[in-house]
């Protein structure tokens, strides 16, 4: 059944509660969400036309774009050690420590770091990254190399000791960096844009596996096949607000979604 807001479900994974969140640029309201919970289902899709505010919302969650008003919180999973965390007042670098991680819509990379460097950077704990720990590289490599190799093998990077050259490699590297952070709540902003079909399928499989182990995944994607195939629930966003939520089949057939986004004859 299509709902006007998020439906209540049995919760075993972390969720993000967006409450009264608003953001304007040059007096134009870009995001205006009264109440929304993300992460009640293992994989949730967020779709909408260009300019709907999807990427801005993702950036607001990560606090890389500040809110004009409102609050965004990470809700507990239910275990006794888990307490609500207000994300919208948190330093961006602390997000990853709370397991909230996001891949980037536009390609972002460390131009001077190799692929191996990039993966080890994600994996290395702060205690090794101290100015006095100048002999700890071999320790870090011994501890984490196997984790990195798993993804290097899966995605078949051309030269892991070299730099990511193509846009596709950089996109994959961005996703792998996120995965290596062991996210509890993973936001993916167009993760498969520009990737060939075979790699898109591998990325989708990795996301399914991750969600199966308890990570909440929210994915923004213009390739709607990815959304329909992956998502357990889809949110439809237009003009800064999430106006519909439901299972993928219902959303793709909903008249509002067809009128505002998909167009007639899309199915």
């Amino acid at each position: 059944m299509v709902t006007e807001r998020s439906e209540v479900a049995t919760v075993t994974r972390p969720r993000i509660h967006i409450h009264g969140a608003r953001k304007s640029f040059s007096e134009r309201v870009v995001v205006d969400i009264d109440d929304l919970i993300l992460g009640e289902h293992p994989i949730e899709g967020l779709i909408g036309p260009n300019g709907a505010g999807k990427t801005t919302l993702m950036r607001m969650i990560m606090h890389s774009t500040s809110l004009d008003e409102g609050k965004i919180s990470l809700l507990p999973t239910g275990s006794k050690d888990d307490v609500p965390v207000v994300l919208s007042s948190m330093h961006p670098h602390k997000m990853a420590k709370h397991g909230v991680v996001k891949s980037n819509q536009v390609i972002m990379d460390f131009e001077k770091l190799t692929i191996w460097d990039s993966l080890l950077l994600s994996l290395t704990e702060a205690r090794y990254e101290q100015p006095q720990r100048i002999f700890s590289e071999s320790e870090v490599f011994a501890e984490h190399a196997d984790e990195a190799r798993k993804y290097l093998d899966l995605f078949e990077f051309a030269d892991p000791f070299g730099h990511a050259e193509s846009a596709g490699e950089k996109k994959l590297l961005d996703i792998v960096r996120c995965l290596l952070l062991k996210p509890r709540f993973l936001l993916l902003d167009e993760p498969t844009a520009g990737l060939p079909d075979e790699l898109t399928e591998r990325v989708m499989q990795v996301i399914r596996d991750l969600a199966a182990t308890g990570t909440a995944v929210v994915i923004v994607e213009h390739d709607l096949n990815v959304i329909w195939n992956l998502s357990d629930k889809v949110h439809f966003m237009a003009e800064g607000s999430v106006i519909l939520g439901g299972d993928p089949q219902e959303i793709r057939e909903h008249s509002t979604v067809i009128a505002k986004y998909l167009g007639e004859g899309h199915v």
Partner: protein
Amino acid sequence: MNLDWLDAFLISGLFDIAMVTGLALLLHLQLGLARIANFGVVGFWGLGMYTYGVLYIQVDWTIADPWRFLICAAAGTIVAGLAGLLVGWLIADLDDDGVLVGTLGFATAVFILATTEQDLTGGAIGMGGLRFPFDVGSTKANESLWLLILVLLVAAILFYVARVHRSPYGRLLVALGDNEPLARSLGKATFRVKLGQFALGSAGMGLLGVMFGVMERFLETSNLGINLTLAAIVGLVVGGTARVWGPLVGVLFTVGLFDIVIQSYLPLPRSWYNQAIPVLREMAFGAALIIVLLYRPFGILGDMRRDKLMRRIHGD
């Protein structure tokens, strides 16, 4: 050992080369890796030197050298490091232009303080009374030994910098210099790391200032001009901002070439040495900088090669 070949001029020239190399190495970590454009090198260096000098001379010490020296040197290093912490806190989130102006402003503040606080520093007249923390005989022997100690110190800095390149800390510095928002999104406390690096580098610069103060045995505010900062920056850029050996190669190519080879072995008129030589020196450094930036924009040694490094340390 026969040290006849080592005259006072050569000792002074070699000391300058070693000291500027040390400063350029510390700047390499800040500018070359973390992309923090510190143009206040002489400020931290001068603060270390003057803190050392003022404590050594103005305090009525009941203990003798080398403990007196060690305490004053430690104080000079720590004060420079704390100043780095304060300045770093103010500039860490500024853009490159802001960092440049902020650090230049700090160096100017140190110069003005050293000039105006005459009771403490001797002001423009200067302050004497410093001496080596040892006495192994003649002035030349003491200066030679002090030069050797400085060379060992700079060699230690070079070793540290080389190890940083091969460490997770070095990778983090490169990452935050390369793309700070991305590094932050990976959970890296970039502000704290930049602050720490700035304070550490500033402390090192302060220590090199202490070394210079002991060598000169007389503190003058004329040493606190922009020349020293320019020498370190030009040396670093000419050699290769992002390469471990870049500072040494660049400083040898600029300070070494001019201060030792040209001044010592070219038959320049004696009358040039007072006025013309310092100006010619700056012109030569400027020309070297322009030529290198035109034809080798990453410096003589080129850009960073993490691919080669990673293959060497983790390759099969």
